[in-house]
């Protein structure tokens, strides 16, 4: 760690991991509710559990992104963070807002929460992933603006590299597109259309800039490969991400009352969306093969390679599987979507944050890399979580294929709930895989505390 203010990332990462645990716990509850419909009903109905599951994901990934930026930006910019104090204050504000929001979901009925937070003044609640009370959304905007100001000033008054400028661009995009969450017209088609300006342009747009720059940073650090090479890759990856992803938004405009031309535009451009992810995989393996040093932090290298591969599989391959309009006509809004969502979020965004944590946490704890035992356990947790996520995805895909056939494709379509009962076996297996994921996560946390032999490394 070259700059003291990089250490601020630590509190962000700890919060991120804690909320991650909550997300997975609620995930396993939901998984059980899929097969035991009355589990925790009516105290914790499915919609509440799902909202907690998805919102915790969003909040902890934002903690992860901000923590990553606080670690990365001072070093890339070759100066201390503009205001460490502001970063600390914003941490507590964001944590408070996040925890209060989740408690609000859990402790009062959602309609009551809407009333308490005066949703009527500016109704923004009750749309998927954007369930947060308006006041929380305003809080998110304030925190993100303060964050942007902080890293922006650091970068602008320091060294500007491709990595920190791309990261900043991604973060600015994140903030700008989030503003669409405040637009909630009564017209359902308009509402849905612009809702995607937050959701799609985040995860299939500007977040890819964030992901690619974080990955590029870690790869430079652990391989020692020439910055020029990495930067060229980074530019071409994010170029393809935006070239495919911007009009790729059209794959959400097939069946919501929008013009027919979106079926062509959405199909063609979203079919290109796997390309940037494939290039990330090529890039990661390429630079690791050409490495100029063997970094003692083997776990971080594994996470970096893993995120590239899993993002390509989850976002790229599983996205492509149902993105062409003639296919999507049958698969839209089924378990196929759920399968894709799980592996894409895990592979791209969960894993890139865990890559950053893996690389930076030992440095913030005054080590070059975690001890041998800790790294071994961390790598075990990598495999447990990653393989169980592969199985979650495969089981949901199986469920989805049968669902599509029985409910949408066969000559004699069956009602939704009848089909759900027929595919319960897949849900049971998904639940088992989910529990294994949770075990992997517990092992991951334990790895931070494991004692063992210090790693040996040659000083550069």
């Amino acid at each position: 760690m070259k700059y003291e203010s990089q250490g601020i990332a630590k509190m962000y990462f700890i919060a991120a991991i804690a909320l991650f645990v909550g997300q997975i716990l609620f995930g396993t509850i939901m998984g059980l509710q899929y097969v035991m419909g009355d589990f925790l009903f009516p105290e914790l109905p499915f919609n509440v559990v799902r909202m907690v599951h998805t919102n915790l994901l969003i909040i902890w990934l934002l903690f992860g992104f901000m923590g990553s930026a606080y670690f990365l930006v001072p070093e890339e910019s070759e100066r201390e963070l503009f205001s460490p104090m502001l970063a600390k204050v914003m941490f507590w504000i964001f944590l408070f807002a996040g925890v209060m929001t989740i408690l609000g979901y859990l402790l009062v009925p959602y309609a009551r929460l809407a009333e308490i937070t005066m949703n009527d003044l500016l109704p923004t609640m009750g749309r998927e992933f954007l369930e947060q009370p308006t006041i929380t959304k305003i809080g998110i905007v304030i925190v993100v603006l303060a964050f942007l100001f902080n890293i922006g000033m650091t970068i602008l008054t320091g060294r500007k590299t491709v990595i920190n400028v791309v990261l900043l661009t991604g973060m600015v995009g994140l903030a700008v597109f989030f503003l669409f969450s405040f637009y909630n017209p009564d017209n359902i088609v308009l509402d849905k259309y612009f809702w995607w300006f937050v959701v799609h342009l985040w995860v299939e747009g500007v977040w890819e800039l964030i992901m690619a720059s974080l990955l590029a940073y870690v790869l430079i650090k652990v391989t020692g490969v020439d910055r020029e090479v990495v930067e060229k890759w980074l530019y071409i990856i994010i170029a393809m991400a935006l070239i495919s992803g911007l009009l790729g938004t059209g794959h959400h405009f097939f069946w919501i009352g929008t013009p027919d031309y979106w079926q062509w535009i959405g199909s063609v451009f979203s079919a290109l969306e796997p390309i940037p992810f494939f290039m990330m995989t090529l890039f990661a393996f390429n630079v690791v093969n050409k490495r100029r040093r063997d970094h003692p932090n083997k776990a971080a290298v594994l996470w970096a390679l893993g995120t590239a591969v899993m993002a390509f599989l989850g976002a790229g391959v599983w996205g492509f599987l149902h993105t062409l309009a003639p296919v999507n006509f049958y698969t839209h809004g089924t378990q196929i979507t759920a399968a894709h969502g799980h592996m894409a979020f895990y592979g791209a965004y969960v894993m890139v944050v865990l890559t950053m944590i893996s690389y930076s946490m030992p440095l913030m704890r005054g080590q070059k890399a975690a001890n041998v035992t800790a790294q071994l356990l961390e790598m075990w947790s990598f495999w447990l979580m990653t393989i169980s996520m592969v199985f979650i995805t495969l089981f949901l895909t199986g469920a989805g294929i049968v669902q599509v056939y029985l409910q949408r494709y066969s000559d004699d379509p069956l009602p939704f709930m009848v089909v759900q009962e027929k595919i319960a076996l897949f849900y049971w297996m998904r639940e088992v895989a989910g529990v294994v994921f949770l075990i992997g996560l517990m092992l991951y946390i334990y790895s931070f505390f494991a004692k063992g032999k210090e790693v040996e490394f040659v000083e550069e």
Partner: protein
Amino acid sequence: MRETFTKGMARNIYYGGAVFFFLVLIGLTVDTVKSLPKTDNSENLTEQVAAGKRLWEINNCIGCHTLLGEGAYFAPELGNVYTRFGESTEAIKAFIKYRPVDGIPGRRSMPQFNLTDEQLEALAQFLKYVDGVKTARDWPPNIQG
């Protein structure tokens, strides 16, 4: 990558591509918004429907159901529920109204939201309005949603 393909070229593709396709997206968005009145059933977007949409939102219906394929996949699609329930808002209202408070043992069940008759009517009218949106190829593929 080969030396003939320089970082400068990669950067130009990024900036040029991003700006160009973002402008195309804005252009198509303008066109889409202009042409929506042909399909979006806005002629039936009454104040009651708008009130129904708010109820749909503040009861987090999307947390279990899909609406035109978007939402959660735990409970049936509601974009065509008006058709599926025999074009009867009364049937929709009755369904919501008579959900057992403690659920149905062993099965998924919808919470009892304790809506007033006026609220039930608004919500049913909202679902009727959504059913009236002209989706491409008349999605969903069949009445089961």
